[in-house]
């Protein structure tokens, strides 16, 4: 077992799926079997994924824990490290450390309804929450998903998402989709297919489509920074209590263990490290930590 928390662990890429022009779904298997077996995580936790000679970047795990000992990451080609990862092939080596962060408290949500709200790449950690909830379907009440995309071409996890969209009721999830590009023919087709579940607009517009959430609902948000403000306004209109709203945050990180200082948020009253105190926070945390959202 490793003794140096900064030491990267070897992993092989077992599968690569090109999802969009800029996003790939990368599946990896950790090399050290003992480490892989001890690798226990909850949705919302992340790994620092690296390429030797290039560097490391924090990437959230987009699956729920499974027996395959494989981990999936939805990786947008957005920076130096992710660009290098995009150039790798099946069988190539990547390096990981983690899992880091707190993750979503799936046990806290038990016995409650779930309203999952995701925009863009924010669907990656939310997908793990959804998988977990569906694997343990009996532990949760109603599950609704609001997913906002810019257009069909940029939709992530298309197979999964379209399956939830079309057959969601069988899986036990009400799946709603919004698209921003009015000219998008495929999305328009989906809206014609189920006009009660799909519409043109922002993800926040989907609040018009859903039934009023019960008092026993936890809202769980994943998306770009700008999305939080508008989503929270909608949730406040529905009288969500701030401790019933969860969100996951993005920040620059170098270590993942609360040392390098990059991910710091808050004021003298409320300093937090997104890497170890988060990346999952409640709205109550955000209300008490200026600059968090």
């Amino acid at each position, binding site marked *: 077992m490793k*003794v*140096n*928390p*900064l*030491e*990267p662990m*070897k992993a092989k890429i077992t599968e690569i799926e090109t999802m969009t022009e800029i996003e790939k779904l990368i599946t990896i298997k950790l090399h050290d079997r003992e480490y892989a077996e001890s690798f226990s995580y909850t949705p919302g936790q992340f790994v620092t994924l690296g390429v*030797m*000679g*290039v*560097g*490391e*970047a924090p990437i959230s795990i987009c699956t729920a824990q499974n027996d395959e000992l494989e981990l999936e990451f939805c990786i*947008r080609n*957005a*920076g*130096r*490290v*992710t660009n290098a990862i995009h150039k790798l092939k099946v069988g190539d*080596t990547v*390096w990981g450390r983690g899992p880091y962060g707190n993750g979503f408290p799936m046990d806290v949500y038990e016995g409650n309804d779930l309203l999952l709200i995701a925009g863009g790449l924010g669907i990656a950690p939310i997908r793990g929450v959804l998988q977990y909830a569906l694997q343990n379907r009996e532990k949760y009440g109603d599950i609704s998903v609001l997913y906002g995309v810019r257009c069909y071409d940029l939709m992530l996890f298309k197979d999964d998402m379209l399956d939830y969209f079309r057959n969601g009721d069988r899986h036990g999830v009400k799946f709603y989709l919004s698209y921003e590009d009015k000219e998008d023919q495929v999305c328009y087709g989906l809206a014609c297919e189920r006009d009660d579940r799909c519409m043109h607009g922002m993800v926040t517009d989907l609040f018009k489509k859903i039934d009023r959430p019960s008092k026993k609902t936890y809202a769980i948000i994943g998306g*770009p*920074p700008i999305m939080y403000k508008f989503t929270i306004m909608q949730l406040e209109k529905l009288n969500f209590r701030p401790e019933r709203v969860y969100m996951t945050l*993005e*920040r*620059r990180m*170098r*270590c993942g*263990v*609360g*040392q*390098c*200082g*990059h991910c*710091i*948020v*808050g*004021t*003298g*009253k*409320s*300093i937090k490290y997104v890497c*170890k105190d988060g990346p999952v926070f409640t709205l109550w945390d955000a209300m008490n930590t*200026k*600059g968090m959202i």
Partner: protein
Amino acid sequence: MLVKVLAKSSFSSFVGALGDYGDLYAPVKTSEKVHSFKEIESLTDIDLSYTRTMIPPKKFFIHPEEVIFEFNIDEELYIEPPGGDERIVLFGVHSCDINALNLLAKVFTEELPDKYYLERKERSFIVGVSCVPDEYCFCHSTGTSYAQEGFELFLHDIGDSYFVRVGSLKGHEFIATHPSLFEAAEQSHYDSFKDAERKMYASFTNELEMAGLQDLLDMAYESEVWTEYGDKCLGCGSCNLVCPRCRCYDVEDHINLDLNTGERVRKWYSCMLSEHGLVAGGHNFRPTARERIRNRFNCKGSLREDMPNCVGCGRCTVFCPAEIDYVEVMKKVRGDLK
């Protein structure tokens, strides 16, 4: 607390004995305004009358730049560089800096112990020395003008001799192996020690009221004070480098010309640089000097590690090229200054 007395006449023998433990580092005057902890060749190099060094002693534990792994791409290996076995003596460290090291130790050793920090701490011998505050010192405000722990020996100047507090087993062993250097402390020594402390405490001219500062910083989040000083700030990051408590680091992979081997390097970093809050894709969580300076002062004022993140050493004020005065900014936050 074990206490001994060291006669000043034994000073050179004492320093010589310290040198037996390991390489001896002490404050040396390197230019008119700058002192630095340097390796000591001759006793006369040591200047214990210094107020502060420019670079704090954190440099001995978290190096400004250090290789944390060597790697080999073909062999798929990250190799930890050998830790080294050199032992060091830091002689003449002030209370503020010892308290700062105690704070660093919390971050680097408590939850996920940093092996590089731990190894170096293990091989060090810290000797504190009492000091006389200048117009920039405000460690009495931050509660760090006295070091309770984090040293082997602490020397308080009481005139003809030093009142020596023993802070660790290593310190005790040093005394036990050099019995001729020390004498037992008598009542008069205790009295002189208390007098000296009282005098030191009374000589502060700079002061920062700390009570409730965390709430006041929170309330000042949208204050104009951040625009005012953000506009002054040059974004050079000097304040971070000279701060004994700043510990942000960056990590870089350096690849050699063979495109196969290289090093992962960790180096000091600064929250006042624009890239500190930048993420891939171009979003910057602290895009202007206003957000960055606000973040720095909030971080300094926080009690996140159970004590203030500032030890009142005055370095950031003394070495700021834009002449931003830390205490002045905090006083504006408090509303003591308009």
